[in-house]
């Protein structure tokens, strides 16, 4: 028996894993919060808390605490701030996923796609998820990253007019689709 023999078994094993991952029923998406709208889609929700997050990680705050507060209080403050940072990081991921969801919806309803853009987005998603997990683990391990968060605010806030326009058109299409689907369901019920 050669490696070729096992290569086919390996290939089939890989295909089975990919198939199990892709063919299972998609998770029902969580219902959108009542206040969700274009403002959420443009990613402003989480980054609005950036000043508070930066304040939470400011070196001066830590210096002040180390001089004036007992050790127990310092530890508790660190823990709470780390928790806030984790929640904020999760929020950034949500912003990233909102952008992704929008990009996919546009791609799905577009008559022509560019393979370059699609594969680029796939690559970016994989890279983002990898880095996100790494940072999350570092935070969980007790390291508190601070100033690098600053630049993120400019990225997800305020999408351009073009994207707002696309969102408007997507919304109209979704409304038409929902109406059509409900009328089809009504007709089915009538037949039954």
């Amino acid at each position, binding site marked *: 028996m050669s490696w070729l*023999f096992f290569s086919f078994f390996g290939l089939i094993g890989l295909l089975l894993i990919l198939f199990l991952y892709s063919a299972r029923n998609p998770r029902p998406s969580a219902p959108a919060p009542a206040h969700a709208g274009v403002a959420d889609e443009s990613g402003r929700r989480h980054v609005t808390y950036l000043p508070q997050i930066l304040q939470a990680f400011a070196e001066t705050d830590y210096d002040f605490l180390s001089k004036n507060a007992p050790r127990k209080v310092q530890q508790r403050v660190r823990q709470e701030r780390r928790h806030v940072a984790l929640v904020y990081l999760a929020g950034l991921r949500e912003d990233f996923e909102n952008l992704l969801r929008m990009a996919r919806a546009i791609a799905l309803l577009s008559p022509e796609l560019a393979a370059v853009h699609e594969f680029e987005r796939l690559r970016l998603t994989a890279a983002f998820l990898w880095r996100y997990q790494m940072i999350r683990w570092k935070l969980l391990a007790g390291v508190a990253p601070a100033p690098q968060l600053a630049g993120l605010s400019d990225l997800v806030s305020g999408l351009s007019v073009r994207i707002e326009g696309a969102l408007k058109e997507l919304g109209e299409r979704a409304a038409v689709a929902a109406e059509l689907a409900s009328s089809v369901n009504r007709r089915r019920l009538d037949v039954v």
Partner: protein
Amino acid sequence: MNEIAAFERILWGLTVFLDGGLLVLLLYRKNHRVFPLFFVYILFNFLQCFILFESYRIWGFYSPVSKRIGWETQGVVIAVRALAVAQICQRVLANFRGVWALAKRLLFVTAAVLLLYSWAIARGSWQFAVLNADRGLELSIASVIVILFLFTRYYGIAVEPAVRALAIGLFLLSCFFVLNDTVLEVWMYHYSTVWNLLGTLAFISSMLLWSWALRERQPETMFAPEMLSDGIYQAVTPEINDRLRALNDHLGQFWRAERRRS
């Protein structure tokens, strides 16, 4: 015919019965209009049983003529199965024109590459030529189904339960045949009886799954969403990608800064 073991004969009879039952079910529920190539595939399978039965009766189970007829009919059946898979891909994705155009190219390239791969690394002897072609095609079919489902998951496209079940049956059957052919290549003579038996069992399992999937009539046409205007994709997607890239870069800086600090 006497060379065939009694158990195998029973299984063969069961295959013919299930094959015929599935054909009737497809016609009765009018699903042959929805999946015409799948219907042709089941029909060819049904006919193959009778052709093989006659050839074994006339020339014997181990005769070279029967073997040739067996492999040639199998080649036709697999080719039609590949077409049935292509039609399933079309049913799932064709309403989304852009995604379908992209998927078609990717599916075609994947199938071709895998076909070449399995051909290139297989044994050179002519005896194995048919076996290698069979395995290559089965591997391509399995990969195409996996890529189809990866596409549907990535873009959030809903797959009808019946189509999902058909695809699962086709996928498992192809995977099984790749493994079965690989083992047969190594232990050609000792394994041939088991190879036939396992192949029949795998096919029976898939047919039961398909019969369950097609127990109800399927809609002939799928809901086709209205496409966005031309140019929206070209205008918006690069901008979204830029933002995603920028988010990524900053996360990267974040990560590097942490490494420097630690």
